[in-house]
């Protein structure tokens, strides 16, 4: 029997210059097109280069990736941000064309690259089930026959006729999952969507995924949740800079991925230039640069382990002398939910001398206890009572699995980890004895 998915020498190139100049308008486009032959005639590389030195920067999101997936296999794709996982899923799902190579898909495929694609806030839960179902490739008859099941799975019976804009984010996610979970394709392609929702619901979804694969269907699964990859998938493929660098059992793949974090090559990936970022600024582009560091002041280049140190240096300008300025950092999850806010106002030992000109504010978080996943960082500068400059997606931080509790087990479920202790009642009595000075505390 031929493999259900056959990927051969697949490459995808993005041109960061020419075709991807998002903000170019038609006049600039014409000017560029018309001036190209002139530059060529003059042989003036300088003119072309100085004009737009990023023009021809090419970026291979996928390079020569080949593998087969047999029917009924559940394959986990893992890799750091920008390794090409999502691009690979997009090519397989036909959202974007490959630059070269081919994919043969032998079966009805449904892909779930985002939770609730096509949900419309103004439509009710009931209406969105139909719309989303249709967008994901379900027939109307199929949706009708599964409707009750979907509603029960999402636990939203009472709110079925409420517009989803009034839903809590939990309800929204549950409904979106419920629709997707009832798809019945031969091949299911899923991108990092299990990382959300509350623990109980996540468990329910994982169970559903498991049932899907046991039902003989093929699943391609991208996740930063290594525990999920290990538990759900038999096979794991690690992508690194667009290449498939490891293909084997999911356990070995996870191991390969986690160990590849040590000994990172030198680069300045931890320095983020903010001058050109899109921002909301009242006073002007005052935020200049952000630098990320982790344990021992090492630059944070890729993922950081749960509970590792995060040190953020923010370079900014103060146009006028002032002693009333503050920097805020907001950590948002996949859904834009604020997980944690750090603000220099919360610093008890904050010095309040008057400053002007370039400044560097350092925020030191000794242990960032967020669960594995991708987080975006919002940064803003307050001067007096005004939000002088704000950048929404200033940086992205990936938290990766680690043995946070030092038990050899990776934490699962929930939004963050907290140090905590467990003891049996009896032990509590002993503690009392200890506390009263009979013996020394072990803490």
């Amino acid at each position, binding site marked *: 029997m031929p493999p259900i998915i056959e990927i051969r020498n697949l490459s995808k190139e993005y041109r960061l210059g020419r075709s991807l100049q998002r903000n170019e308008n*038609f006049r600039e486009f014409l000017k560029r097109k018309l001036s190209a032959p002139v530059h060529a005639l003059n042989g003036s590389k300088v003119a072309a280069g100085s004009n737009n030195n990023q023009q021809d920067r090419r970026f291979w999101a996928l390079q020569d990736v080949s593998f087969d997936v047999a029917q009924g296999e559940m394959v986990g794709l893992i890799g750091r941000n920008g390794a090409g996982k999502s691009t690979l899923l997009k090519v397989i799902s036909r959202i974007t064309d490959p630059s070269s190579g081919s994919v043969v*898909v032998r*079966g009805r495929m449904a892909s779930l690259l985002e939770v609730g*694609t*096509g949900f419309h806030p103004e439509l009710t839960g009931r*209406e969105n089930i139909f719309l989303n179902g249709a967008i994901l490739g379900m027939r109307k008859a199929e949706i009708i026959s599964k409707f009750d099941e979907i509603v029960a799975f999402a636990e939203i019976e009472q709110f079925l006729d409420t517009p989803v804009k009034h839903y809590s984010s939990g309800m929204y996610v549950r409904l979106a999952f419920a629709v997707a979970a009832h798809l019945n394709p031969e091949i299911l392609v899923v991108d990092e969507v299990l990382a959300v929702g509350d623990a109980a619901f996540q468990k329910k979804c994982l169970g559903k995924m498991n049932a899907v694969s046991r039902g003989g269907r093929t699943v391609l699964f991208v996740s930063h949740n290594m525990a999920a990859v290990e538990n759900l998938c038999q096979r794991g493929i690690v992508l690194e800079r667009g290449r498939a660098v490891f293909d084997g059992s999911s356990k070995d793949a996870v191991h390969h991925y986690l160990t590849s974090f040590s000994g990172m090559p030198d680069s300045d990936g931890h320095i983020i230039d903010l001058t050109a970022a899109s921002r909301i600024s009242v006073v002007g582009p005052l935020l200049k640069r952000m630098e990320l560091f982790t344990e021992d002041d090492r630059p944070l280049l890729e993922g950081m382990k749960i509970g590792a140190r995060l040190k953020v240096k923010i370079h900014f300008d103060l146009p006028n002398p002032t002693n009333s300025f503050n920097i805020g950092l907001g950590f948002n999850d996949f859904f834009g939910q604020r997980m944690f806010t750090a603000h220099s106002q919360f610093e008890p030992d904050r010095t309040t001398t008057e400053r002007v000109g370039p400044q560097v504010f350092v925020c030191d978080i000794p242990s960032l206890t967020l669960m594995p996943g991708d987080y975006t960082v919002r940064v803003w500068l307050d001067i007096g009572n005004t939000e002088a400059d704000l950048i929404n997606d200033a940086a992205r931080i990936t938290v990766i699995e680690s043995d946070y509790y030092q038990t050899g087990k990776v934490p699962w479920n929930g939004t963050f980890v907290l140090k905590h202790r467990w003891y049996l009642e009896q032990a509590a009595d002993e503690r009392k004895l200890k506390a009263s000075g009979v013996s020394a505390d072990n803490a």
Partner: protein
Amino acid sequence: MSSFELTIRPRKGWQPLDFKEIFLYRELLSFLIWRDIKIRYRQTLLGGLWAVLQPLIAMLIFTFVFHRLAGMKSDGPPYPLFAFAGLTAWTFFSTAVSQSSNSLVSNQQLVSKIYFPRIFIPLGAVGALLLDLAFSLALLLLMMVYYRWPVSVNVLLLPIFVLGAVLAASGFGLILSALNVSFRDVKYAVPFLVQMGIFVTPVIYPIHYIPERWQMLMGLNPMAGVVLGFRYALLGSAAPWSVMGGSLAVSLTLFVFGLLVFRRMERRFADVI
């Protein structure tokens, strides 16, 4: 494993339409149209009334300015009927072109996160406006009762002209929505072009105001034939078939051209949008 097999490769150049796939996804087109209709007038006070309010108010203003003040005559029926029949067709066209040319950009999330035949997005936007057109036509019939103007037997040919309007709007919509993905200039150009378009289309004035030897040129305007056809079919106005036929042929050509251009450009949508 089903017999279904799909090969994904880089595509280059012109692409044929994939009719099999369009058939497979046909239900989605109706869902997209249904969605657009559902959300268009959500949280508005007047709701569906907006569908007829726009041509109605334009008709009142045109009747006052061009008929009363400037003394413009219709080609037979009372001027308000004449103007409203033309405006019904024109409003459908202009709204459909603006909505569909923005459709890909306003459905960015769909384009970059899921696959289905992309042509459904601009076509769905046009399709959703057919309901507004129906409301508008119903109001026109009421006005005809009020003015005691008989419905012509030509009304049997109305579907042809509605089709002409749909093809013309879709043709423009397909091309402009695809261009809009790369060049947001489209967003600014379309309202202006639509505003100018009404003057080169016989909406306000009857066709016989134009010297006969120039009338043929009107046939190049896809909407000229539709506007004339609406009056011909509903009000029984005389209309030169040379112009109407020309317009319909242009509409059809534009639609086919639009499909081809769209297919050629669509492979880059997800990367650029």
